[in-house]
């Protein structure tokens, strides 16, 4: 199955930066960045997350200009607190098959990007790899 990624951060720029890093390893995987309160401030908005899910799954109206194939399932990486709740709401309201990875957002996104390039990748395998990032030791 084709698995895509959505990176949710309280800061739109943080989300975009994380996607920039993860995309280096992502091959043909679709990755969307989403964040901010929609008014230029810090926060997350369920509707925006829902649109990102749809874009990765190729359901967005007019948003399918990407060359990468649409995803059958989406692993969602989140940063803090209400980003988790808003991602949950967005997933419940969306038709897209999506799961949240309980992972550090940057390391998880990079791991998930690599895992998603595996031809035998599944929603579960990509989520597992993202969650394995919680055990990365840095020093």
């Amino acid at each position, binding site marked *: 199955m084709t698995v895509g990624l959505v990176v949710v951060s309280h800061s739109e720029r943080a989300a975009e930066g994380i996607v920039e890093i993860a995309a280096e390893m992502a091959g043909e995987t679709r990755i969307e960045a989403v964040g901010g*309160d*929609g008014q230029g*401030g*810090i*926060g997350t*908005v*369920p*509707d925006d997350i829902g649109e990102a899910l749809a874009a990765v799954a190729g359901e967005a109206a007019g948003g399918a200009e990407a060359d990468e194939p649409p995803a059958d399932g989406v692993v969602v990486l989140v940063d803090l*607190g*209400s980003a988790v*709740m*808003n991602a*949950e*709401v967005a997933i*419940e*309201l969306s038709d897209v098959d999506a799961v949240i990875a309980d992972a550090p957002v940057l390391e998880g996104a990079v791991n998930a990007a690599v895992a998603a390039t595996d031809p035998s990748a599944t929603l579960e395998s990509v989520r597992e790899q993202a969650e394995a990032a919680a055990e990365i030791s840095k020093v």
Partner: protein
Amino acid sequence: MSGEREVTEEGEAVVAAVAAVAERIEAEREHLTDLDSAIGDADHGGNMARGWAKAADAASDLEDPDPETVAKTVGKTLMSEVGGASGPLFGGSLVFAAAELDGGITAETAVAFAETYLEKVQDRGDARIGDATMVDALTPAVHTFKKSIEVDDLPPLEALAKAVDAAGRGVAFTVPVRARKGRASYLGWRSVGHQDPGATSTLFILEEVLAVSADRLDREVPDADATSPTIPDDAEAEEGR
């Protein structure tokens, strides 16, 4: 089964309730912010006031509103306008519970709505009774409402009045307990002695829903005591015998 006109009337009642909530939250903005600044990030008053003002506008813009559509519209607006965890908790839960009002408001659908709303708040926030959150106000309110309707067979307005009294007791309960969810939980024992802002705003919302319900029924808000199994008037009448 309600006719189309009744459903629109009910929808208009919900719109009026939302307007009353928006006005109340605006009036309590400083109060909520003070509560939140003691244990959180001092944004609850401003966030809720902004969100409910926009929700009231969105609700009043609806043509031929039915209760489900009003609740869903308000929920969606809160979801996108109220920052932090309050957006998904107040707004997201409302969006899901709204479906229970499909076809109108009866004692039965109101109980189903309340139960679904509570369930969503509990799941989303992963909070239980005693964590010093809005769940402490909401759970006794919903339980009291359900029991008042289903067991005590009280009229809906009396049931709602008892639910509001129960919510008030729940808010008071958040003061002496240690917060275990949300930002207040970072304070550990220092959160003891502070009233939870989310529980407080939940009570304000319920109080306004009660006031508007009474107004629409052309009744006074009934006195109610959630610790009494029947409405006080009956109890007094009983004693007088």
